[in-house]
């Protein structure tokens, strides 16, 4: 990456301050007043709305293969998703996914 030191620190401190502001929002400032119910509904889906979209292009068009779909990375992604869904265990899914990546790379490459 080609960020200046200043930009890197802007990201670190900006993310730190912004995240604190989110955490402090109700507890610190708003007190016991409640949000409109639809806002709470939206908030429930933030993580699940951002993460899949962030990952999808990385799986479909990995930069390292010049944007060509890659069997090892597709298999690794499918394995990690399936293990996470079935066993609800993040670590198992990570290690399973990495295992699948190396396995297919060894078989194909």
């Amino acid at each position, binding site marked *: *990456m080609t960020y200046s030191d200043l930009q890197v620190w802007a990201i670190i401190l*900006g993310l730190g301050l912004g995240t*604190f502001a989110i*955490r*402090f929002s109700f507890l610190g400032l708003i007190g016991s007043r409640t949000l409109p119910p639809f806002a709470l509904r939206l908030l429930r889906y*933030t993580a699940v*709305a951002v993460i899949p979209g962030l990952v999808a292009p990385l799986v479909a068009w990995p930069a*390292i293969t010049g944007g060509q779909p890659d069997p090892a990375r597709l298999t690794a992604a499918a394995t990690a998703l399936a293990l996470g869904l079935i066993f609800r265990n993040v*670590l198992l899914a990570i290690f399973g996914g990495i295992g699948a990546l190396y396995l297919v790379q060894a078989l194909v490459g």
Partner: protein
Amino acid sequence: MSGPAPSAPRKALLRGMLASAPFLVVVVPFALLFGVVATEAGLDIVQVLAFSLAVFAGASQFTALQLMQDQAPVVIVLATSLAVNLRMGMYSAALTPHLGALPLGRRTLVSFFLVDQSYAASAAEFERRPTLPLPDKLAFFAGTVLLVAPLWYIATWAGAVLGTRIPPEYALDFAVPITFISMLGPMLRTWAHVAAALTSVVAALALSFMPYGSGLLVAAVLAMLTGALVELWQERRA
């Protein structure tokens, strides 16, 4: 049980530590991985450690790292990573009835350490024991971060040290995507979550022509709306 339970903050602190212990199995390797990947991406050890100290929220740290590797502008990196942390606004709202009566300094500290793990453990405890006195509730919350936070920092540092020694040919480019996908499975608790995730994937791929990762922000908004609307629709049918 009637009336408030007698106050026993030390016991509550221990219960909090115990309740957070299973999370360590996830927190430690996750922080290690962040340290390794962030170092491989070109951050120095001070920056990597500052990330974990200042932000203390794994998913958003990995999000920022991925977007930085994609050379996204600083504003987009911040907006997208903060979007990942918006759920903590919900945690803050949910704990306010229990901890809102604390003095401002304490509430500031609680806010700083409000993460998935401390929220989940505390919300469960406060629901189980609604009559717990305020000092005990605070002590329980403190217990849930007493192990998690220091280990998060130490493991990040260890990962950063390790990262400088791992050669680049280990396909670590894919460590972040795999970590995210692995976190996703357990998050898909209802059909509304599944619908939101699918919308996010389809929209992000379709909008990937938009500059500087701004398509992802649009996709995230569409996906949140989808999740909320599916939830509403399911409630009306039930």
